[in-house]
């Protein structure tokens, strides 16, 4: 069948599944899944930009998404005046010192005369000295800030701007980090980029978990501002109550549905924009060149294309999209939880989405994001039901049965792994393969 027809059928099937969930479980559950599908789709698009356009394996998706979440906090949370008064300026000085020393280190690496070894050591020494200096400046400030109402705040707060702005900021944060790590790790073997990105994302998460003065660390930041109305306010309005009566919903349920639909609307707009931009880029001369480089790096290099610079562009762009999605995710959650960014849940799951959806194909990424997230969520109740059914013959409190039911959730991981392996083996081009391949 023609590829267009196939795509339409695949997406229709996806839609049907979501509707089925709405009917069988509830509309709220279906919409909650939909929203996370949308965000996953955007994240997958970002990863696909790196993988599909340039063949780069980014194992640190989680870290870039976390930076997006950080942006959500720093942009939208109102500033905490006491904390600023007590240590704000000193803390800023410390951060600036750290940033300046890193920049100096990079400059040293580029300009100090001598072999790569000399330059490398020079950069490392400068960075180290800068960090020590930063600690000197920062530590007392941090102590003071964290002492300000630790139960409620204990951090500097943010800019108090509308949270939607943070989506752009999240992209910017991630892009900056990507630029830094890309400068170091690109141009080497692809495995190195994977490990380096794994490393940077673990550092980012560590940093966010431990630097309470920045975003409360593991105490989390909740009560983040929303771009959509609150359920409680909706429940009080007349039109919602009337609508609820008309359709035989409870007011609470309807308000929840409306909130989720509002988010969905916002997310769909963002997804559409990102998708449209990605498609334009893919089909542009720039995109064709990127793919030519990906398919034959040696030849492209011989033709004079600066492969590493191109890779850096792609890496930064893709990471920006991931950061954007990360900010959106934290907005949806309303809570910034550094502890929730785990490699299995985040990075590698997104990779399954990219591969299953179709590497190199933007539409495929969206479908992959939807499909895999859907199965990841639904696998839990389905898996549990399956195990309960299989063990129904056993005594109700047999240790084995209890153990199996408790750990049924972990079969999700194994199943996802099997799905990834099967797709890689039998359908490596994914559900929606790259055009022209």
């Amino acid at each position, binding site marked *: 069948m023609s590829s267009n027809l196939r795509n339409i059928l695949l997406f229709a099937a996806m839609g049907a599944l979501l509707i089925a969930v709405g009917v069988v479980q509830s509309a709220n559950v279906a919409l909650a899944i939909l929203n996370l599908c949308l965000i996953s789709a955007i994240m997958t698009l970002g990863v696909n930009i790196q993988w599909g356009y340039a*063949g780069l*394996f980014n*194992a640190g998706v989680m870290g870039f998404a976390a930076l997006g979440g950080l942006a959500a906090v720093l942009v939208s949370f109102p500033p905490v005046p006491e904390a600023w008064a007590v240590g704000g300026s000193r803390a800023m000085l410390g951060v600036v010192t750290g940033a300046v020393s890193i920049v100096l280190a990079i400059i040293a*690496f580029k300009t100090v005369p001598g072999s*790569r*070894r000399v*330059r*490398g*050591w020079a*950069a*490392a020494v400068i960075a180290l000295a800068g960090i*020590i200096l930063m*600690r000197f400046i920062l530590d007392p400030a941090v102590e003071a800030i964290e002492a300000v109402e630790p139960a409620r705040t204990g951090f500097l707060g943010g800019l108090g701007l509308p949270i939607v702005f943070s989506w752009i900021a999240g992209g910017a944060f991630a892009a900056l980090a990507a630029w830094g790590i890309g400068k*170091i*790790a690109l141009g*080497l*073997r*692809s*495995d*190195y980029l*994977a*490990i*380096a990105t*794994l*490393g*940077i994302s*673990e*550092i980012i998460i*560590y940093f966010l*978990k*431990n630097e309470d003065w920045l975003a409360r660390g593991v105490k989390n930041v909740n009560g983040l501002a929303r771009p959509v109305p609150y359920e409680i306010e909706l429940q009080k309005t007349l039109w919602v109550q009337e609508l609820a009566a008309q359709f035989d919903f409870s007011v609470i349920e309807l308000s929840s549905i409306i909130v989720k639909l509002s988010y969905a609307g916002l997310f769909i707009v963002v997804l559409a924009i990102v998708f449209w931009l990605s498609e334009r880029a893919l089909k542009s001369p720039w995109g064709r060149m990127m793919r030519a480089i990906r398919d034959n790096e040696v030849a492209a290099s011989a033709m004079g294309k600066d492969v590493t610079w191109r890779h850096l562009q792609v890496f930064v762009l893709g990471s920006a999209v991931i950061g954007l999605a990360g900010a959106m995710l934290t907005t949806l959650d309303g809570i910034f939880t550094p502890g929730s960014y785990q*490699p*299995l849940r985040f990075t*590698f799951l997104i*990779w*399954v989405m990219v*591969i299953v959806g179709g590497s190199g194909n933007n539409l495929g990424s969206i479908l992959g994001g939807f499909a895999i997230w859907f199965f990841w969520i639904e696998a839990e109740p389905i898996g549990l039901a399956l195990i309960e059914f299989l063990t129904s013959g056993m005594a109700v409190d047999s240790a084995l049965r209890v*153990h199996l039911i*408790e*750990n*049924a959730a*972990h*079969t*999700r*991981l*194994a*199943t*996802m*792994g*099997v799905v*990834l*392996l099967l797709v*890689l*083996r039998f359908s490596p081009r994914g559900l929606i393969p790259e055009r022209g391949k």
Partner: protein
Amino acid sequence: MTDIVNALVLLANFVLVPGLAYGSQLALGALGVTMIYAVLRFSNFAHGETMSFGAMITILATWWLQEKGITFGVLPTALLALPVGIIATVAMCLMFDRIVYRYYRREKANPVTYLIVSVGILFVLSGLVRFIIGPQDRVFADGERFIMKARAFKQMTGLDQGLAIKTTQGVTVVTAVVIVALIFWFLNRTRTGKSMRAYSDNEDLALLSGINPAKVVAITWVITGALAAIAGTLYGLDKGYKPFTYLGLVLPIFASAIVGGVGNPLGAIAGGFVVAFSELLLTFAYKRVIAYLTPGDWIPEGLVQLLSTDYKLAVSFVILVIVLLVKPTGMFSGKTL
């Protein structure tokens, strides 16, 4: 004079002994990773979970032995159970090679594909291990806990500072030394070992020389599977077993391998100790040591700690970055780029 000795003992207790143990564990893990890289030419992200799998089987066998009343005296019973873990892990590695990796060798897939495949296997193993043994902490070390207790040391020497050496730490170091010696003997003195080095060095020429690639691949998995089981068990004995932690070991292990020169066995071992000691040295609070070493009663303010212990993992990453900047081929110029 006693002050200096006290300072040394303090360092030994908190840096040297733990560093030797942790470094041995990293070295064994990195050795496995580097051999897979050298022969099969890809980075196996699933090695951490392979270690977890090996430890898990050993734990199950240990429990079985303990139920039967079989112990190993002062040493952990897990050492008796270890062969079972090794066999199971090797079998699993060979199975995965047969049903997954072999196809990609035939297709001459590029290294990133192998990496993604190893991520798939990571998922499967991760889920499998958690499903079988559950995600919670398991302490399965038994036998005598300490070779040397801090209090006994203080009584023996009359010093203020005590030196404690856990049995698991001693076991780790001794086992690591034995295993490393065996592997180096194998690689340098046996025909099969040399054929593996030849295959890793120059695949085409090795094939021309009549070296059987299937045999080389199988032996690689046997060795690295055994290494994973041993490293995983030792780590679990020393620090308690929790499936979740093994995913976090991937970064230090790869950092060790890259620092030493990926593909070079000697480098992997050296790298393991570099990373372990760096982690400890950079997050150690030097307050008391400085107090001992400076004349008089002066004690420095604050802990004199460069990085908080939470940042231990960050250290391996920083080392990795420095290596990539300064000398990507690592200390011993492994095969790379």
